[in-house]
């Protein structure tokens, strides 16, 4: 089971001092117009603990230089710290080798890298790419661009009324023209955890490689790329308490080696003349130009921070919040939860009868409550449920039960305004 960790009993996290953990996040002390900030937009971006902020400051004040170049002291230190960050990511997802971790600017960049590096080299006219209804636009648009360029075709896996993938339908989509699968691990719009292990295995029986968009999964589920046997796995630092502007692409070494480079420039070459350029080895082949060194090192610090708490404990704590919030929301007449999959992360998309999500978001904001409203960059999901948009509360391990209560009170206020 992909998500065995989320069925943990509450005892799994009860020995941790969650209030003490919460105190690590300085931004949570903010007041919005006199009201304490209640930050429930963690699926869009999570907040950063002091430990990561301090690491960024330490790097910038004592360790910064460009990497992989000069022989001077600072360059050596920065190169080493950047490499250490890569190794932390390798351990975090249990990759076989550190060279299988490529630093990118984020999940979107990672997916575009695979599209250009793998897709443009290996996908041809008439080939088929399987995606799902749950994909974020970032795992739809690059493949559409490729399909248009090559004359390839996109096939889409449907979802049921609970927001779960119809895996039987997925399996029926395979044929001899199927050449690639792009699959979101956890839906950003609904929180659905997809049975990716089973889907990866099925694709591999047909010799088809699979890219997993793990942007919403990595913060909440233990990811073991060797156990999953996925070919590519992508996620961003800023959803894992790290900085914006950095993410990773994991790829199996043999695939990365077979791929063509995405961006050309410095660092990605072994030698250059005007007649011929020889590309560098992986991961450098895919890291053209000066990478986001500080952000990558901050990413490493965020991984240290999360691993010290433990993803299992985080998942169990968040699941308890999800269960409580779901129960409370279900008790409010006129509120409808969109996405009721059996396996979910702590994301609740909802609508309120007769009230547009943007009005909900604006009125909740007046109580200091931050939720996301809109289509969540997942318009196919909105179309499937026949709603233009939803409001989305997404929880992190630093959220409190009392913040769920505040959300519920806020929703009742919204309903009163529109009575």
């Amino acid at each position: 089971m992909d998500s065995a960790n989320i069925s943990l009993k509450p005892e799994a996290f009860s020995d941790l001092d969650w209030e003490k953990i919460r105190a690590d996040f300085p931004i949570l002390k903010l007041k919005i117009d006199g009201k304490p900030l209640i930050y429930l937009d963690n699926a869009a971006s999570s907040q950063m603990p002091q430990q990561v902020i301090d690491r960024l400051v330490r790097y910038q004040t004592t360790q910064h230089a460009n990497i992989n170049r000069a022989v001077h002291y600072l360059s050596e230190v920065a190169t080493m710290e950047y490499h250490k960050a890569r190794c932390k990511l390798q351990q975090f997802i249990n990759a076989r080798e550190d060279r299988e971790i490529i630093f990118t600017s984020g999940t979107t960049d990672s997916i575009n890298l695979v599209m250009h590096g793998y897709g443009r080299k290996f996908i041809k006219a008439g080939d088929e790419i399987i995606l799902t209804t749950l994909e974020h636009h970032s795992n739809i648009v690059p493949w559409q661009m490729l399909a248009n360029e090559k004359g390839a075709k996109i096939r889409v896996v449907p979802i049921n009324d609970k927001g779960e993938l119809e895996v039987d339908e997925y399996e029926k989509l395979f044929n001899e023209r199927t050449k690639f699968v792009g699959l979101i691990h956890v839906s950003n719009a609904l929180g659905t955890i997809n049975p990716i292990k089973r889907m990866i295995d099925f694709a591999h029986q047909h010799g088809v490689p699979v890219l997993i968009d793990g942007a919403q999964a990595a913060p909440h589920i233990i990811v073991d790329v060797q156990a999953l046997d996925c070919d590519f796995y992508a996620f961003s630092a800023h959803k894992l308490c790290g900085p914006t502007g950095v993410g990773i692409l994991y790829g199996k070494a043999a695939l990365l080696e077979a791929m063509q480079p995405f961006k050309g420039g410095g660092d990605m070459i072994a030698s250059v003349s005007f007649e011929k350029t020889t590309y560098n080895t992986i991961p450098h082949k895919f890291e053209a130009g000066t990478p986001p060194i500080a952000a990558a090192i901050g990413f490493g610090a965020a991984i240290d921070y999360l691993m010290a708490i433990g993803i299992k404990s985080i998942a169990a704590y968040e699941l308890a919040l999800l269960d409580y919030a779901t129960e409370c929301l279900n008790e409010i007449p006129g509120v409808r939860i969109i996405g009721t999959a059996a396996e979910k992360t702590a994301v609740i998309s909802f609508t309120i009868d007769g009230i547009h999500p943007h009005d909900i978001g604006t009125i909740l904001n007046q109580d200091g409550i931050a939720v996301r409203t809109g289509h969540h960059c997942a318009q196919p999901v909105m179309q499937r449920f026949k709603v233009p948009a939803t409001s989305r509360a997404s929880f992190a391990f630093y959220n409190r039960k009392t913040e769920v209560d505040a959300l519920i009170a806020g929703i009742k206020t919204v309903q009163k305004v529109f009575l």
Partner: protein
Amino acid sequence: MVTKSLYQEVILDHNRKPRNYGKLDYASHHAVGHNPLCGDRLDITLQLENDQINNIAFEGESCAICKASASMMTAAVKGRSRLDAEILIHEFRELATGKLDIDHPHHLGRLTIFSGIRDLPTRVKCAILPWHTLQAALNSIDNASTENNDSAQAVSSKL
């Protein structure tokens, strides 16, 4: 607080019971407005005769701010000349983007209820979409978007 003053009874009333809601059977001018950021859509039909707006209607999917703005807009321009409507369009955009000094003479009347929107940059487009669409209809442009013309850029630069 801004939002409290924004969601006033007048706006809520126009949201509940929008005026001139629907589609004219015989329209001389028509435009559909989109806000691609939130998926809101507004359909405006109007009858323009001798440069006078004899009738106008709107329908679509949108938030309360957008719907109330559209409702109050149709009420304000119905029976007025094209020039009057264009003055109102200009003044409303200036109001929503915080560029209009409401202590100086203007023609907006109760529409100044939307002045608080200038403090909510993400919602400015909601209020402006109907006006934008009206302008497109008057200029016989079938499609308007909050994202692709001069006034949209004015909004963006405010953001």
